[in-house]
């Protein structure tokens, strides 16, 4: 199937994983984000194109940063945002995911932004309900809006998405548990970039080729030849439960420190989805022109605006045409 995942209600479309998007839809999203960037740089005033829409955020797993980014994006376009406080305990108690979502539907939301600790939950919600679903991160599966925002940052940095074809991008960290790595590899693969997954063996996926990527267990082997070094956030408890007995032994091999930074190509760039664990994955002060880290946060909001605009414009068109039919 090409295009955004089709839902039972015509016009309602979801973004649950990168494969939901066709190449032209991705280019369209980049174009929309670019328009919002120009508006932001100029008047800082955005249209209220989504003023009739209601967006619900449904975070089964805490993430203030991501929730704020989505909320800000929706509000900038005039949508109303309601946050449904769902406790982590409702997940552990095995409360039916569908029951929760039926409640969201009944409240009249047009779209729901879902963060869930279990892989596939946003996809399941999209297939079980008539809601337009945006995946805000599901377990170790995907985090598509993060990857799309990063693509937008890369496309700006390299002056056009067409220039990503010849680029080599290393993603470094806990690949096995990273939803960002999965979305990003899938997305960059579409534009011909060469992706190398870098991390210790116990944090590597079983078949990197399934993600269309190469792999390495040695950051020193790749650091000198990449155009982009994408550092993932490291969770300390995962390090200590695994192959490296301490953070120290991990950082010795995989931290971007001064020595490794100096080996990077002159115009290469460092990225990170944030928030950075200073002294763990990154231990060097990066000059502004070599880091996209704060740009990524800004672009994340612009890309989420683009996603809402694309998904909800169709939904509110529907509503308008329904009004037309019923003549009120």
């Amino acid at each position, binding site marked *: 199937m090409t295009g955004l995942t089709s839902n039972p209600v015509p016009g309602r479309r979801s973004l649950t994983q990168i494969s939901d998007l066709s190449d032209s839809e991705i280019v369209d999203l980049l174009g929309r984000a670019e328009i919002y960037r120009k508006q932001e740089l100029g008047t800082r005033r955005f249209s209220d194109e989504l003023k009739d829409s209601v967006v619900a955020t449904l975070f089964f797993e805490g993430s203030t940063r991501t929730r704020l980014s989505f909320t800000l994006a929706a509000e900038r376009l005039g949508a109303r945002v309601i946050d449904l406080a769902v406790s982590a305990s409702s997940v552990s108690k095995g409360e039916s995911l569908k029951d929760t979502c039926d409640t969201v539907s009944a409240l009249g939301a047009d779209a729901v932004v879902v963060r869930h600790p279990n892989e596939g939950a946003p996809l399941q919600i999209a297939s079980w309900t008539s809601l337009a679903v945006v995946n805000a991160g599901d377990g170790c599966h995907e985090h598509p809006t993060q990857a799309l925002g990063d693509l937008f940052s890369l496309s700006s940095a390299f002056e056009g998405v067409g220039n990503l074809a010849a680029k080599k991008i290393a993603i470094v960290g806990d690949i096995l548990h990273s939803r960002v790595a999965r979305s990003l590899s899938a997305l960059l693969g579409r534009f011909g970039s060469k992706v190398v997954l870098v991390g210790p063996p116990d944090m590597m996926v079983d078949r990197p080729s*399934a993600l269309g990527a190469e792999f390495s267990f040695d950051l020193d082997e790749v650091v000198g030849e990449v155009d982009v070094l994408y550092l993932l956030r490291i969770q300390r408890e995962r390090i200590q439960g695994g192959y490296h007995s301490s953070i120290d032994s991990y950082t010795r091999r995989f931290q971007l420190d001064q020595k490794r930074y100096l080996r990077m190509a002159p115009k290469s760039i460092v990225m990170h989805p944030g928030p950075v664990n200073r002294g763990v994955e990154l231990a060097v002060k990066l000059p502004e022109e070599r880091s996209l880290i704060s740009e990524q946060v800004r672009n994340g909001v612009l890309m989420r605006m683009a996603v809402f605009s694309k998904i909800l414009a169709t939904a509110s068109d529907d509503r308008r045409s329904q009004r037309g039919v019923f003549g009120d």
Partner: protein
Amino acid sequence: MSEQKVVVKGGLVLKPDGLFALDVAIEGEVITEVSEGLDTFGSRVIDATGCVVSTSFYDTHTHSRYPGDSEAETIETLSEQGLLGGYQYLLAMANTEPTIDSVSIWKAVREELRKAPIEVDQAASITIGRKGERLVDFVSLSEAGVTFFTDDGTGVGSTKLMYEALKMSELLGVTVAQHAQDPYLFEGASMNLGATSVRLGLIGEPEASESTMVARDIELLKATGGRLHVLHVSARESINLIRMARNEGLRISAEVTPHHLLLDDSLLSNFDTSFKVNPPLRSKSTQMAIVASAIRGDFDAIATDHAPHAYHSKQRPFSQASFGMIGLQSAFSACWTAFSEPPASPTAIATDHWSHRAASRIGLEPYELQRLHRLLEMMGPGAARVVGRRIGIEPNAQASIVICDPTARSVGKIEDIASHSTNFPYEGRTLRGSVVGGFIRGKEILREGKLWF
């Protein structure tokens, strides 16, 4: 029951060495004649033209959900699906609530199952509560009439307990059936390990989880004697190991499920929990290897592993949803659909003038006729042998037959399935072949694919 003689005419009849154009006469509860051009004077004639006539099917692996989960299935809905699927006999697994692990529970459950309009036999567990800590009382259970022991749902992880269970099997003449799955390699997994699990970010189980336990059990079988049945084989290496063990003369049998023959793990790409099953659907290449093995004759039986679940236990995040799919009613069509893929070189298969004629009689290629024979062998006589029965279409045998149309096509629809559960994996899929008629002990059960009694 009417005492009128019945003649099933014009079909291809299942015999040990092939499918032959024969007529079958039924009087009372038995088959009285099997030969060409039977006289039909004064008889009721069942026209089986274009169809095959097989022994009724036996299922060596059913989850009845009795006792404990009437929301998922009842004895009535189970029986209905079984009869519609062409089955005469179902072997119920012991992973119920409570576990069937004592004589008193086994007797009570069996008493209840006896009321079913289909024969349902009950297995007992190998270990108490299926906890893998202590063996059940094999001697008392065997004296009470249990012939089949299994912890199905989980493997017997302890090598020592499996050794002791197989020793019991040797001493008492009962069968021990293993759900081969290494508890450590399976830990946390909700699907097969492969490209799909990597993309979905789900924990996958390697095929070696199964094959290492099969290898271990074969070594234990050599050390103890006894009779081992390997449930729902899903790994390539398991098949090789079982073939070698059989060639060495060990008493080992193996079953394969319709879903491992027809489906592969790419179907999980959208986190559809209907396809979550244990052992998991494997890669396309393993699935194709399993089909080739089944055609070659590496399996004794087709077993449905029919596993109904109330809808809410499937409407959960993928990693938390229950394992299992329903498949009793659709077993023949699912398997026959899986056998449809033409061989790489059809001409390589030796056929004679006769098989060309017989095949064209029911609109099939000669190689398809050989496969159909193999399939019916596994669903009927082969499966019956696993549970210690000898069946066949011959004079004086019990008149339990099923009539299948191998060229019929239908689209899988949950509305057509008699279960309370909806975890049906063939929804919307075009299936080939259907069960159209059937008799059990001379009594007509199915007519035009519908229950008739």
